[in-house]
């Protein structure tokens, strides 16, 4: 499992305040939207997302001396954000997110390499026709570990290697977690589609449309 405090183990290197401010504005501020979005997807709550981004920024500022200019600032920030999220939600026991996180750990530890069920009963056309709220609802319904990795990969375009660093997990786990998360997501979307009466028959080889 993760060592969520790893970023804090880096010593606080001193840096001139003016330089720190310039570095912050140049390297970190451009990623604020992405950070907020990630925080919102993790917490499912605007106020919590607000706090999480703010804490992350203040922490990033505090440890700015250990940021190496030229390295990928966004990955560095996301790693702090993720650690903050895990620490906060473990400590504070606020609401269902903590329960959910623990549930995920119990339910999925050791199962990440298990082969997910075969392709969900879902077609590309169905996904294309879906309204936005169905996609976001399905994402929100994912256990947090899977939601996290799918957002990092599909929305933020991090590479597997970057995600391995952000999440502090081996690259093989990145691959299998992503694969499994997507399998669950497809199942969820297929069940929405079924309810709404979209065509879900995945091998309808009649070619009539």
């Amino acid at each position, binding site marked *: 499992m993760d060592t969520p405090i790893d970023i804090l183990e880096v010593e606080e290197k001193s840096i001139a*305040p*003016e330089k*720190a*401010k310039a570095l*912050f504005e140049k390297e970190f501020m451009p990623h*604020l*939207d992405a*950070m*907020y*979005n990630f925080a*919102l*997807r993790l917490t499912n709550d*605007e106020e919590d997302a*607000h706090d999480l*981004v*703010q804490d992350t*920024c*203040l922490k990033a*500022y505090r440890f700015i001396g250990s940021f190496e200019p030229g390295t990928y600032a966004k990955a560095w920030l996301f790693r702090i954000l993720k650690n903050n999220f895990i620490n906060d939600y473990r400590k504070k026991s606020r609401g269902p997110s903590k329960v959910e996180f623990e549930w995920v750990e119990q339910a999925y530890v050791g199962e990440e390499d298990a*082969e997910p069920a*075969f*392709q969900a009963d*879902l*077609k*590309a*056309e169905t*996904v*294309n026709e*879906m309204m*936005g709220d169905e*996609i*976001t609802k399905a*994402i929100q319904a994912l256990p947090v570990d899977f939601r996290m990795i*799918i*957002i990092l*990969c*599909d*929305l933020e375009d991090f*590479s*597997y290697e970057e995600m391995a660093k952000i999440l502090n997990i081996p690259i093989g786990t990145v*691959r299998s977690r*992503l*694969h499994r998360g*997507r399998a669950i*997501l*497809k199942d969820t*979307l297929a069940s929405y589609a079924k309810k709404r009466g979209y065509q879900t028959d*995945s*091998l309808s*080889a009649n*070619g009539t449309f």
Partner: protein
Amino acid sequence: MLTNKNPEMKKHCEHQGDCMQLIQRIIDKEATAEEEQLFLNKKEQCLPCQEGYQLEQSLKKAIKEKCRSKCPDELFKSIKAKLFILLAIISILIPLFCDQNK
């Protein structure tokens, strides 16, 4: 998106598990050029692979388009304000009162 249906296309893929993993690595831009080319050729003869590829592409695109939200202006301002205060504390107060720090 229309599926290119070739009458001789396989309706069943015997390595679907492996193919699905490869498809995801391809859409995530993590596969090598050779792997990608090999798959793109293969998918013309395999319906599950072709449909799987389209599904994964659509899903990635849908997530990208539908799950984006913008940082509220007030949060942006409050972060800047807090940093400004921090900066003030660091650059003014601490050097001046460093003997009196609690």
